[in-house]
């Protein structure tokens, strides 16, 4: 028997959220005295060396479905491969990252495997009375403790819920050849547009976001410079993406991307409840706003009242200086 962790890559590099899934699988394996942690990788863009490296995070074995058709995340095809890998390894548990692919794949596999699914899970399960997972609900405003009532279980892990530590070890990589039919590719991906070289917003450890207080897209340079200095991803409030100052996939909040970084920096954002809903699981929040009454200060750990156009460039310089 085994625990399977699905790993997603972005242009051949394993995503941080998937490394977290492997680490979680390894920790759970210890907890339930399971000895095999199998990482499952799909597509032909990820190298064997990259996959062997998963050993450092607790995987013993890596199954690699090295098939070009799986370079793009076709939901049904992915679900079919994951299902076959669970059967092949006799796995009772599947761990994956909650993501644009993880969610739809998990739910299809749950039906195939008749597995109980815990979504948006934030820590290791409590095994004192059944198998109970803690999930973030009401867009971060509460948690649910949910018993997974089936022998088979699937856990979709919220990003940044656990901190991966690198150990020693190398995993053995084995080819995995699932059978795939045309029906698995019922949907065809015709084009993919990705922002180049950026740190993925939902996975970022630091996020710098700007709101309507920045007054126009031409003023985003200072946000980007602060983000570059911090090694951060950039985000924005909803009106900013609605007006078109920034692309839609940067919009953070209830109806946008949910982030859970170590540090969230909000510049010129009022802190409406729908925006807070996407950031309230950040470890630390720094708010820069000229209005001392802005609601965001109530949710913040650190705050500066002042004009963003004055504060942000100075802050960037001071952080740069502190890095030398």
């Amino acid at each position: 028997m085994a625990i399977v962790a699905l790993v997603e890559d972005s242009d051949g590099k394993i995503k941080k959220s998937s490394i977290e899934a492997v680490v979680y699988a390894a920790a759970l394996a210890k907890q339930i005295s399971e000895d095999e942690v199998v990482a499952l990788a799909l597509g032909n863009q990820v190298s064997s060396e990259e996959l062997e490296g998963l050993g450092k995070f607790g995987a013993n074995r890596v199954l690699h479905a090295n098939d070009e058709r799986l370079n793009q995340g076709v939901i049904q095809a992915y679900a079919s491969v994951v299902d076959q890998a669970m059967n092949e390894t006799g796995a009772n548990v599947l761990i994956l990252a909650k993501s644009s692919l993880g969610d739809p794949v998990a739910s299809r596999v749950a039906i195939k495997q008749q597995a109980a699914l815990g979504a948006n899970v934030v820590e290791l399960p409590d095994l004192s009375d059944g198998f109970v997972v803690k999930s973030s609900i009401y867009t971060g405003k509460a948690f649910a403790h949910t018993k997974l009532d089936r022998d088979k279980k699937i856990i979709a892990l919220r990003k940044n819920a656990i901190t991966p530590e690198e150990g020693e070890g190398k995993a053995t990589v084995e080819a995995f050849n699932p059978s795939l039919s045309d029906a698995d590719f019922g949907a065809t991906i015709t084009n993919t547009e990705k922002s180049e070289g950026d740190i993925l917003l939902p996975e970022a450890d630091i996020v710098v976001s700007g709101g309507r207080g920045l007054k126009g897209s031409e003023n985003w340079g200072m946000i980007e410079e602060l983000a570059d200095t911090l090694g951060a991803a950039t985000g924005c409030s909803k009106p900013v993406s609605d007006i078109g100052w920034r692309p839609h996939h940067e919009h953070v909040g209830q109806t946008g991307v949910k982030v859970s970084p170590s540090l969230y920096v909000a510049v010129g954002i009022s802190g409406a409840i729908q925006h807070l809903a996407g950031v309230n699981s950040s470890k630390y929040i720094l708010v820069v706003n000229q209005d001392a009454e802005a609601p965001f200060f109530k949710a913040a750990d650190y705050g500066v009242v002042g004009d963003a156009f004055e504060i942000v460039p100075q802050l960037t310089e001071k952080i740069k200086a502190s890095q030398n």
Partner: protein
Amino acid sequence: MKILVCITHVPDTTSKISFTENNTKFDTTGVQYIIGPYDDYSLARAIELKEQHGGSVTVVNVGEAETEPTIRKALAIGADDAIRINAHPSDSFFVAQQIASVVKEGGYDLVLMGRESIDYNGGQVHGMVGELVNMPSISPVMQLDIEGDTAKLSREIEGGKEQLEVKLPFIAGCQEPIAEWKIPNMRGIMMARKKPLDVRDPADNEQMTDTVRYELPPPKGEVKMFSADELDALVQALKNEANVL
């Protein structure tokens, strides 16, 4: 074209969340209920597609009698008829089974729902229904157009988007900017009263999970304020206290 739109009945986005009975029950005191915001987007797009291609829009909700005002609102926005499966939506699997049985019977060309509900944020129902009725499921969908028997759509991925094509019928979990929300007008509200709302018993009662209790996050500590000329101290705090630099 026959379109089914699945709607949730959820607390308004600004609701204060609290629990009663030793943290085992959601406290509904003073809570306003709305159509799930993502479901609202799917409904709006369904009505636009009906305007372009003809056909009908049916809404379905799994919920007890108290969800009827929410269903009537969907009818007022422009759905033609509604189905309420008379049961408490106890987990995603249970809800997916109910919707799947409606889909199987109804001969729908398209099933739209929100990418996730805003109470449990599971994002599971579309995929489960897709698997139960053996149709492609695609989520989160930001754009959806139909040409003949083919849909062209785009889906959000981390740091970008993906364009796809799929043959009807299929299931989509939607999000903005797929359409502009529609607001019911007086005529819609009047007409909604007369539109058919079919109440059915649940098809099956199985569930796979059981939520045993709830918890609120610990209260936030006080914010530490820095003035514009104390930015050095702020950088020190970020570095040495929060350990984030």
